[in-house]
Each structure stands twice: as structure tokens, then as C-alpha cells.
């Protein structure tokens, strides 16, 4: 579709801070499935939904009696619901389009990380990873909470409710145990403090396999790539690891059962689980920062799975490291001197969004480089010199016949103006009909007394991003002159009308489309612009506009 002419290097990574969003103190961020909306949880207990296209606030989700800071936000797959976990041990499910609370649950501990079930058939089920106990499956409809097993000891899989020794052999008491759903939500992967990943199915909570992460260090977080083929783990030994997921994306439970059956001969439960596990996840890469040996924060994949990003924030820094999937470090982004608290990569574009301790959300994007070849229709950029081979009849005197034939054949093709290509990148066909991609933008009404206030708002025009076409160098002059002038348009409507009257008189013709254009064509562009600038500057005084406007008009000699 149109992506054919958009920059083919779409899969690249961002380089500079393009913009920042400010609204209270935002602590955690999440994109919706298509990246059109960004949800941010704030320190005052509210959630803000930003329209990423306009970089404006689309909605605010606020519950007046809850003011505890939000620790985690997660979108449902169809974008209709948002799950927010707060520091007062609660989980709230919001409906994004209405802004109303749908459900609330209170747990025994504050949740650090909350994830909604990825399948649209069970949007009310979520996974909550609390501060220091086992992950919990919460069903909003029934209110049931199920603790998940966190370790497989010799005595068999033990659940959290059994004993205080739930973490096995006396490891630190306050250890978060991360958990994540597989891509379609059939399986849950839980990482424990011994460096093991338990694979279980979400319906029966039956542990199928165990994978040992080399190094045996406590696992701090786990996240899948968007296509579900790679798992990224962040361990206490300051290393990020990528595992390749060997299970199929659909029917993972059946595949696990099949693997288990083939290992019937193995007596030891733990050994059997480990053998099953080894067939599910295979270590593929390791990343660490050998220089500073710091802990990583908020690691994740890029939208297309080509890049891995991790952040360093332990010494109050705001550094973002980007690696290629092959393991090579490609970029280090350094942000302002505020510690980074959360990070998210846009699902489709090469944009990273990072939240800092000060509450701002920074948007990192590719450096904007003008594509000059776009301005000439037939221009093709070459990567390197190409030898040009002439045709036999290149310099013959009758080359036109060839061209004519070409254009005729093209015109006879059938043209289809209605068929739409399906977007293959996001090809989960079960849901695309009902997805909520954007919130309706309702223009906020202008009050008539706000004319003076416009002086403030329109000066923001200077901050507008501007792009130029190289053909209009004179337009550049206009841009500089426009800035001081723009605030005038809104000042006093009387002055404005006079200015327009002056110009209309100058035109000598009523404002009909074609006649105008004819008049415009005859006039030189530069004189017209200077005229406009003069008119504006004079009317700034707001006195005797009519009189003064006449002078430049006659001088121009229309």
C-alpha cells in the first residue's frame, strides 16, 4: 500500500529526542497495539491517554477516591480496556472509550507489573506480579485469584500458599517474580529467584517445563517479542538474555503435552520438566554492559523484533542501549539528567518513548533528513557508481516510437480502486474488526472573549515543526517574517478586517476561485509577501490602519 513509498529504512532505530510530553508526574507508559495511543500512569493515581499522532491528551482516567501512584499500565489487545495497578494494592480495569471504571480488584500486595490476557476472548483475566510474592492470576468477573507456582523443588511443584520457604532455599524475601503470557495467552512463563523459567498453562496452572537460565541469577523481568518468537530476560547478574521460543504460537499446550509424552521413561519429575523445558526455549544471545556492570531497566524488543533495547538508570542516568538481534551494540542514547523509570518502543515506527523520574515522557525519533530525491519524480538515488551501458540504438534519431508504445499498454490495465491490502505486519485476524485505534477528537470550543488569550497560544506557532521544499527559497523569507506577524491576526478583529479590506481593494476583483488564481499568476510572489509583511507590521499599531495600508498598496504599483 502506501508503505511502498515511505522510507524503506523504517526498521531503523531512533537517535534524538524529538519532543517531550508533560502532564503531572508520569511513571509508567504503554502503547496500544497499533501505537496510536499512549497510556501513562501518573503519581496522583490517574491515567492519561495521549493521542500519539497529535501529541495531545485524548482522555484522562481519574478516580477521585484513589490517589495512590500507578505502578503499571497495560492495554487490552483490542484497545478498549486499560488495566492500571496502583500502589494501594489495587488493580483497576478502565473502559477507554467511556472513561469509566469497569472492574476493580484488591490484592494482598502492591502489584509491580500487571498484564492483561492477550486473547480478546478473555479480557477480564490478568496476571499481576506483586512486590514480593508469587504472581497471581486475577479474574475480574469472578473475583477469583490464583497463585501461581514459583518453583519446582524435589518434593514437587509448590505453590505460594504452602510455606514461607516458597522461594526454595532461603533467598532474599523481597524478590519480585516476573511472569508473562505467551503471545496468544495459552501459556504463562514465570521466572523465579533461582534463575529458572517455569512454563505452565493458564487454564489448569499445571507446570509443563522448566528452563534454567545460565548463571542461576534471580530473574527480574521477562518480555516476549511482538511475534512471540523471542523471550528477553533481565537477570540479577546484570545480563540480558534472548531465548528463542521453539513452541508454535498456537497450540502450545498440545505441543508441550506431546513432548512430555515422549519423555515417559524419565522418573525424576524435575529432570523431566527440565528436559521438556529445554525443548521450548533455547538461549540465543546475551547482552551485558562490561564497562559499568550496571543493572538494566525496562528491557524490551522493538516492534518488529529486530532491535533489543535496555536502559541504565541506576546512577540517576538516562541512558538507552540499542542492540541488533545478532548481539551488536548499535547505539547509546543519552537523555537528560533525570533517572529513567520506564521505556516503550512504538509497535510500528522507529520511535522510543521513555519516562523519567521528573515525570516527563520523552519521545525519541530518527533524525529527520530531507530526502531530496523525493522532489524530482524520475530521480533515483544510487548507492554507488553504476556503469551505464548504452543501447545499440541509443543515439539513433527515432527514439520516440518506443516511448509511445509503452504508454498505450499501461492504459489498458484494469484498475481496482476499492480493494484494500490487509496489513500483514499486524495479522491477528481474530480481532481487527473491533479494534479501538483512536479516540474521537472533540474540538474544545473557543469562547468569544478568548481573543486576547490567543496572543499567548499563537506564539506557539514558532515552535511548529516546519518542512521546506527546496523550490521555494522565497518562502523561507516569509517564514521568518511570519513569526512576529502571526500574533497579530488574532489580536483585534477590527484591525484584521481592515487589513483584509485593504487587500481586497488591492485585488480589484471579488474572491472567485479562477479569477483570483489568474490574478495571482500575474503577480510576482516576492512582492506579494513583502506587502503582507508590511501590512501586518503596520496594523500592529492598530491605529489608522486604513490610511497606512494605502501607501504600500499604491507603491507596489498594481
Amino acid at each position, binding site marked *: 500500500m502506501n508503505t511502498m513509498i515511505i522510507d524503506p529504512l523504517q526498521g531503523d532505530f531512533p537517535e534524538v529526542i524529538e519532543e517531550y510530553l508533560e502532564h503531572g508526574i508520569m511513571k509508567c507508559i504503554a502503547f496500544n497495539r497499533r501505537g496510536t495511543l499512549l497510556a501513562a500512569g501518573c503519581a496522583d493515581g490517574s491515567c492519561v491517554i495521549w493521542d500519539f499522532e*497529535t501529541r495531545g491528551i485524548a482522555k484522562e482516567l481519574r478516580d477521585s477516591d484513589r490517589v495512590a501512584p500507578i505502578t503499571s499500565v497495560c492495554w487490552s489487545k483490542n484497545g478498549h480496556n486499560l488495566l492500571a495497578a496502583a500502589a494501594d494494592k489495587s488493580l483497576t480495569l478502565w473502559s477507554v472509550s467511556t472513561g469509566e471504571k469497569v472492574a476493580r480488584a484488591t490484592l494482598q500486595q502492591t502489584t509491580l507489573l500487571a498484564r492483561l490476557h492477550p486473547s480478546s476472548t478473555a479480557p477480564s483475566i490478568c496476571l499481576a506480579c506483586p512486590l514480593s510474592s508469587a504472581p497471581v492470576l486475577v479474574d475480574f468477573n469472578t473475583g477469583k485469584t490464583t497463585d501461581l507456582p514459583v518453583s519446582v523443588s524435589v518434593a514437587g511443584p509448590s505453590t505460594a500458599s504452602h510455606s514461607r520457604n516458597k522461594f526454595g532455599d532461603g533467598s532474599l524475601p523481597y524478590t519480585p517474580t516476573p511472569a508473562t503470557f505467551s503471545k496468544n495467552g495459552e501459556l504463562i512463563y514465570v521466572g523465579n529467584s533461582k534463575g529458572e523459567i517455569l512454563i505452565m498453562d493458564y487454564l489448569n496452572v499445571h507446570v509443563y517445563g522448566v528452563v534454567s537460565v545460565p548463571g542461576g541469577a534471580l530473574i527480574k523481568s521477562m518480555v516476549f517479542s511482538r511475534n512471540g518468537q523471542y523471550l528477553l530476560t533481565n537477570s540479577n547478574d546484570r545480563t540480558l538474555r534472548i531465548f528463542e521460543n521453539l513452541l508454535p504460537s498456537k497450540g502450545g499446550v498440545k505441543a508441550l503435552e506431546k513432548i512430555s509424552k515422549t519423555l515417559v521413561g524419565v522418573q525424576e519429575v524435575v529432570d523431566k520438566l527440565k528436559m521438556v523445558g529445554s525443548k521450548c526455549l533455547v538461549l540465543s544471545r546475551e547482552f551485558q554492559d562490561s564497562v559499568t556492570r550496571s543493572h538494566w531497566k525496562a528491557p524490551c524488543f522493538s516492534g518488529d523484533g529486530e532491535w533489543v533495547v535496555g536502559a541504565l538508570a541506576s546512577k540517576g542516568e538516562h541512558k538507552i542501549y540499542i542492540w541488533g538481534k545478532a548481539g551488536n551494540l548499535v547505539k547509546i542514547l543519552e537523555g537528560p539528567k533525570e533517572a529513567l523509570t520506564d521505556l516503550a518502543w512504538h509497535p510500528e515506527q522507529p520511535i522510543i518513548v521513555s519516562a523519567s523520574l521528573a515525570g516527563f515522557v520523552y519521545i525519541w525519533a530518527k533524525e529527520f533528513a530531507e*530526502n531530496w530525491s523525493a522532489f524530482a519524480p524520475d530521480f533515483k538515488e544510487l548507492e554507488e557508481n553504476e556503469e551505464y551501458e548504452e543501447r545499440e540504438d541509443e543515439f539513433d534519431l527515432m527514439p520516440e516510437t518506443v516511448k509511445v508504445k509503452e504508454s498505450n499498454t499501461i492504459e489498458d490495465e484494469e484498475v481496482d480502486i476499492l480493494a484494500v491490502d490487509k496489513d500483514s505486519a499486524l495479522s491477528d485476524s481474530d480481532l481487527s474488526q473491533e479494534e479501538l485505534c483512536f479516540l474521537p477528537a472533540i474540538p474544545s470550543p473557543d469562547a468569544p472573549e478568548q481573543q486576547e488569550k490567543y496572543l499567548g497560544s499563537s506564539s506557539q506557532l514558532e515552535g511548529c515543526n516546519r518542512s521546506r521544499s527546496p523550490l521555494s527559497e522565497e518562502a523561507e523569507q516569509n517564514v521568518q517574517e511570519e513569526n512576529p506577524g502571526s500574533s497579530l491576526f488574532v489580536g483585534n478583529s477590527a484591525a*484584521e478586517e481592515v487589513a483584509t479590506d485593504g487587500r481586497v481593494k488591492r485585488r480589484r476583483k471579488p474572491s472567485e476561485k479562477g479569477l483570483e488564481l489568474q490574478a495571482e499568476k500575474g503577480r510576482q510572489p516576492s512582492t506579494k509577501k513583502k506587502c503582507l509583511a508590511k501590512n501586518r507590521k503596520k496594523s500592529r499599531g492598530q491605529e489608522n490602519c486604513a490610511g497606512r495600508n494605502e501607501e504600500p498598496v499604491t507603491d507596489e504599483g498594481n
Partner: protein
Amino acid sequence: MAAGGGNQPPQIAPYRPYRLLRTLTGHSRAVSCVKFSYDGTSLASASLDKTLIIYSSATLDTIWRLVGHSEGVSDLAWSSDSHYVCSASDDRTLRIWDAHNGECVKTLKGHSGFVFCVNFNPQSNLIVSGAFDYTLRIWDVKTGKCVRVIEAHSDPVTSVHFIRDGSIIVSGSHDGSCKIWDAATGACLKTLIDDKVPAVSFAKFSPNGKFILVATLNDTLKLWNYSTGKFLKLYTGHVNRQYCITSTFSVTNGKYIVSGSEDNCVYLWDLQGKNMIQKLEGHSDTVISVSCHPTENKIASAGLDKDRTVKIWVQDA
């Protein structure tokens, strides 16, 4: 000139000609633009008499008259939910009107020349406008702030249109060029045409976003495949030398290209065969704008100053 019925190319079903249903005479000056809403319930028209009128598309009664601009209105656009109408005027502003109560909700100021063309993006959170100051401006609907200024051309911008997913914008201008811009960054992605003559008077994406229909002031309409940069179809027979006449796709009953013309007629061509199917006569001045109803076989057309009417044409069942 031949009246009403046109050629009969070999088709699956015989072509049923359009006939005049009603003439609406609400405006006191030339009508510059007419557009059906996306849900088909309303029709809006803009005029050089500084007002817009919203009609009910079923009864063709006037519902609202939108007054507020201090100069003539050149273009209008409906939001995707058919709730808001945005108008572009020679008073260098754009206004967003609520179509349900006829109130002006917002005024967008910033252009330094007559605003000539306007369109919402499909998500209707952004508005793009082109003006005589040679620039395109992208506005945030909610706040009314100008989000981006693109120094697009070296002559007045005559036409702007978003693609169906809102990612790119096509703009046509009197400098003879038709360019495609990335909506998010404002970067120029492609230049489709770059000849100084003839001027590009209108450009619009096809419903599926793969093709662009471009009108140039040499009596020509071309359908371009913009990824290959080649035009596929050429439609001629009408007159278009002076005005920025809008054209559109008619897809409710067979695929046609519909356009106004300076010989006071509305032309219909078969999309694939490029032959003219019908010429609708009745206006007494240039037909400057045409619009097709999204679901019914209805066409609305607007005439310039000697005519000042909006005519509704329907196909007999």
C-alpha cells in the same frame, strides 16, 4: 451539444442515466464546494456569500446556515463521524462547525493567505489545509493548534487530501507539481508531477489509497499509481482551463469518475474504459464541485456565479 443520455458501452447491466432531481437555491453568490457527509445523511455546501448551508440529504431541506466567516468560503470537509464540518475561507481562517447545532466551535488561524482547500484525516483528529501562502498546515482538531507547517509549493496550493489510514497527504498546486508528504514528519516522500505547466488543480486518493486522481488545467484528468509514478488512465472531453474543479469516484453502482466542467456540465466516465458515459446538463455556469453520495446513486453538483445553485442528480431505479 447532446443532451442527457450518453454512449452505451458494452456492460453487464445497461447504464441508467442520471437525471435532475432538485435544484437548491440557498446561496446568493457562487457556490464553491458541495460535499455529502460520510454517513450520507447530510449535504453541505459552501459559497462565496461567506456562508455554508447544511441540508438533509434525504429531504433536501435546509437544516443549518453557518454564518461567521468574513470572506467567501472556498472549501469544506466533513469529519469521519459526520459530526463536524471544517470550512476554508478567504479570510485566512478555517472554522470548525458542529453540524448538529450549526455552531462554530473553533476558528483556526495561522495562514497568511486565502485558505483554499481543507480535509480531515480519517481519524478526524487532524485537519490539513492548503492556502495561497503556498504552505500546507496540519492542525490538531481538539486544541486548534497548528501542529505543522509544510512549505510545500511555490504557488497557491489548490488541493489537499489524506490517504485512508492518515499516514500520507497528497497536495496539488498551481506550480504544476503534485507532491506526497508524510503526515507524521512533514517530509516530502515523492513528487508525482513536476512540470511547470499545466497547473495541478485537484488531487485526491482513491478509496483504497493506491491511486491518485489528478486534474490539470489542460482539460485532463489522470489516474496515477503513485508507487510506480506512472499514470494508468486518462480522461478527457471536458473543459478545465481556469478553475479548480473537483472530481470524485462514484462506486455505488459501477465504477465511474465524475467531474465538473467549464462548459456547465457534469461529466461521467467509465473508470476502466475511460469513455465518457454521460454529460449532465442544467447548470448555467461552470460546475465547480461534485460529490457522490456514499451509498445511494446520487450526485450533487455546484455552479459558479451565474448559476449559484446546487443540483441533485439521481439514477432512476
